[in-house]
């Protein structure tokens, strides 16, 4: 039989004078839990000097109430039964501190998230609340006074992702005089926004508003811009992160290439043969290329997959000739690693669009003239594959175009969520197509969602332009004609749900308004930065309303569509917010860490060293002279794994001492 610790209140000495405060939280708690009887019950527990219930404990009067009691009844420690400690533990700790007792002599009881909100049976809920309060009272009198640890903040910031969100965050931070590392995986920054032609609802050209910011980011004295690079490893903790960045070989020396692009003209390939990623394969590029004219940085890239020199080593290397004295081209360039130190990190890794082939009944990939919305953005773009001409695969102009909304959105078979931006960009595309081709444009939508400044007005304008709006999710796109007018065209079949009958609409071009999805590698990325994802794979914010750009990892912030579908204004706003959060931390110069660190009771340590391997942070070292283990408080993150692992039970964790937890266990179980 293993030894079972004695019950009773821990060290055996008389309990401290405890004050218990039960919060109604309006009706949130009081609606299900009989707060009065909980408070009355608490009053009967050993050590409890004061026990009260109050409408809103977190309100000023509520806080004042506690302060008052502490003074009048010289309470030694406090139990607050209210919401989750993750919400208001800091609040009440401040109350204790203000009243001149140590902030850590507080124990929170979560009777809202864990009781009143999740149970229907009032009696059972009240009983549960009592059990939890009893346990807290027994545990709190064992709390030791503790001090938060202060660690300095490294003022440098890492921004991951060079889309509009990343660029804006980087510029904001850089303008505030902080050193910023902007890491982008593609050869250029700009992200999705750089692919667009116009932006809704104002229809100002994307390039005109984006490229200035791109060049600014590229040339800012405080920004180290690393394109064609990826974060490989992240270590450390808030204020003190060590980050390894991998630079993929461009086969062109950054500092020497001036972006004259003579090499491209000189390439032995007269015509491009490789699918152009930036144009989504709608055009071809050469082995040496610049993603698009306004790319930042203006440095070419060589694609080893396509380049003859890499394949056979027998190329005339006309590109090298063309480059001449500058000697910027280097076929032997290797991948390099660089390590940087930053204090805070902003993640702006963006999204990917839904793969339309996953909805086979829309014929994407089967019928040439079924495009995704992003492909059409490129077709419409003046610098795109058709120089802005909206044409079918055969070069002719469409007479009728169907735009299908919610492709890969609001669908339990693919993605359940609404992608938020599709309605508006579909309106934008409808307008541009009508304007430039005069074609009949049909929008097939489920619900038209235009919440935003000037959005509804834009919708109104489209209605006025005579664009068709048919409310119904399209069932099928096919080339199966049952009416002469349908021969040789694409037929869209859908119920006009407002008219109440099925319609067949023959068109020449179908545009699938594809939804937004988390990046394919979102899971790896979040692991690397030690943050969480919501079920769908979007990065999880600390609080959906009150901390939308913070994460559960101190010093790591999220901005833009990596957190959820967003349009440009929202991305920019969030990027600004993330930058501000980072700045706030940096300018405080220090960050306070919870003091939940572990420590060794030297006299009891047998020096077995088993804890050394238990610690993932190498925070535990062995003092050979004393033959005892010792824990470095700065490195310790307070997980407590070593505590549970120590065979001689000689490691303890602040605020989570074994005895405290025994008290809580026995407390919840002790019969009322």
């Amino acid at each position, binding site marked *: 039989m293993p030894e*079972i610790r004695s019950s009773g209140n821990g060290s055996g000495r008389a309990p401290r004078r405890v004050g218990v405060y039960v919060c109604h939280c309006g009706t949130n708690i009081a609606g299900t839990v009989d707060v009065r009887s909980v408070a009355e019950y608490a009053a009967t527990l050993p050590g409890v000097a004061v026990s009260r219930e109050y409408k809103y404990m977190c309100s000023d009067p509520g806080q004042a109430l506690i302060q008052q009691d502490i003074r009048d009844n010289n309470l030694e420690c406090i139990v607050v039964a209210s919401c989750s400690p993750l919400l208001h533990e800091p609040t009440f700790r401040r109350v204790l501190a203000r009243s001149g007792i140590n902030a850590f002599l507080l124990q929170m009881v979560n009777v809202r998230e864990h009781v009143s909100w999740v149970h229907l049976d009032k009696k059972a809920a009240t009983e549960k609340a009592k059990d939890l309060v009893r346990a807290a009272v027994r545990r709190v009198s064992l709390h030791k006074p503790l001090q938060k640890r202060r660690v300095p903040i490294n003022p440098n910031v890492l921004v991951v992702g060079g889309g509009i969100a990343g660029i804006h965050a980087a510029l904001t931070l850089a303008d505030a005089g902080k050193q910023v590392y902007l890491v982008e995986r593609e050869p250029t920054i700009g992200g999705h926004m750089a692919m667009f032609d116009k932006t809704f609802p104002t229809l100002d050209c994307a390039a005109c508003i984006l490229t200035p910011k791109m060049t600014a980011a590229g040339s800012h004295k405080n920004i180290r811009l690393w394109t064609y690079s990826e974060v490989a490893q992240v270590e450390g903790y808030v204020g003190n992160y060590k980050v390894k960045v991998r630079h993929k070989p461009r086969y062109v020396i950054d500092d020497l290439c001036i972006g004259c692009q003579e090499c491209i003209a000189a390439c032995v390939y007269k015509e491009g043969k490789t699918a152009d990623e930036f144009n989504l394969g709608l055009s071809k590029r050469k082995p040496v290329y610049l993603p698009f004219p306004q790319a930042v940085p203006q440095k070419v890239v060589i694609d080893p997959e396509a380049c003859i020199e890499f394949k056979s080593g027998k190329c005339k290397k006309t590109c090298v000739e063309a480059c001449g004295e500058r000697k910027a081209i280097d076929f032997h360039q290797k991948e390099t690693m660089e390590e940087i130190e930053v204090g805070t990190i902003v993640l702006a890794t963006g999204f990917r669009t839904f793969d339309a082939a996953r909805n086979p009944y829309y014929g994407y990939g089967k019928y040439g003239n079924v495009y995704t919305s992003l492909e059409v953005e490129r077709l419409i773009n003046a610098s795109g594959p058709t120089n802005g001409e909206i044409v079918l695969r055969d070069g002719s102009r469409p007479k009728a175009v169907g735009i299908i909304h919610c492709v890969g959105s609001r669908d339990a078979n693919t993605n359940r969520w609404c992608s938020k931006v599709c309605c508006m960009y579909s309106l934008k595309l409808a307008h541009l197509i009508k304007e430039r081709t005069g074609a009949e444009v049909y929008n097939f939508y489920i619900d038209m969602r235009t919440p935003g400044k000037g959005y509804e007005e834009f919708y109104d304008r489209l209605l006025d332009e005579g664009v068709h709006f048919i409310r119904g999710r399209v069932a099928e796109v096919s080339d199966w004609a049952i009416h002469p007018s349908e021969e040789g065209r694409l037929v869209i079949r859908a119920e006009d749900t407002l008219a109440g009958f099925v319609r067949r609409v023959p068109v020449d071009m179908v545009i699938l308004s594809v939804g937004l999805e988390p990046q394919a590698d979102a899971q790896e990325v979040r692991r690397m930065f030690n943050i969480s994802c919501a079920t769908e794979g979007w990065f999880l914010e600390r609080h959906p309303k009150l901390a939308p750009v913070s994460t559960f990892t101190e010093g790591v912030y999220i901005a833009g569509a990596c957190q959820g579908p967003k349009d440009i204004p929202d991305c920019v706003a969030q990027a600004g917010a993330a930058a501000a959060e980072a700045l706030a931390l940096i300018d405080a110069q220090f960050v306070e860490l919870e003091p939940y660190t572990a420590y060794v009771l030297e006299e009891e340590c047998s020096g077995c060293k088993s804890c050394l391997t238990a610690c993932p942070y190498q925070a535990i070292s062995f003092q050979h002279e004393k033959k005892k283990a010792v824990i470095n408080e700065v490195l310790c993150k307070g997980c407590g794994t070593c505590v*549970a*692992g120590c065979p001689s039970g000689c490691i303890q964790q602040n605020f989570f001492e074994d005895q405290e937890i025994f008290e809580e*266990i026995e407390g919840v*179980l002790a019969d009322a």
Partner: protein
Amino acid sequence: MPENQPTSSLSDHFEPRIVAFFCNWCTYLAADLAGTSRMKYAPNARVIRVMCSGRVDPQFVLDAFAHGADGVFIGGCHPGDCHYQEGNYKALRRYHLLKRVLKEMGIEEERFRLEWISAAEGDRVRSTINDMVEKVRALGPLDWGLREEEVLAEEAAA
């Protein structure tokens, strides 16, 4: 599919008492999420917050059983997601060891459970607790103290 209903006041005879140790970074948050999304589940579990499932000392579990818990439930981050890199693996290893010990002590395995529940999986807190409560209710009370005596008696007899 048929919804899995909250099983609270289903039977008034025996209400199992479950002690749950939840990791501060995932399962505890998941339980909060279940709250904010107003999911309903059995009121039989008492949650004790630890910073990491790796902090759960086997003695905590034994102590809980010894003091009248009918079941113990440990919730940690999914493998690879541990906020402290590998605490949950440590928890897993200890879990398996302890399971054997408990078996020898005659404690049915349904009474001791380890689950990986991420911050986003509020519904899994609901379903897991409901499920465990039902299984333990089916087993009946543990009253381990009593069994201890039995064991001792047997030893004496032998």
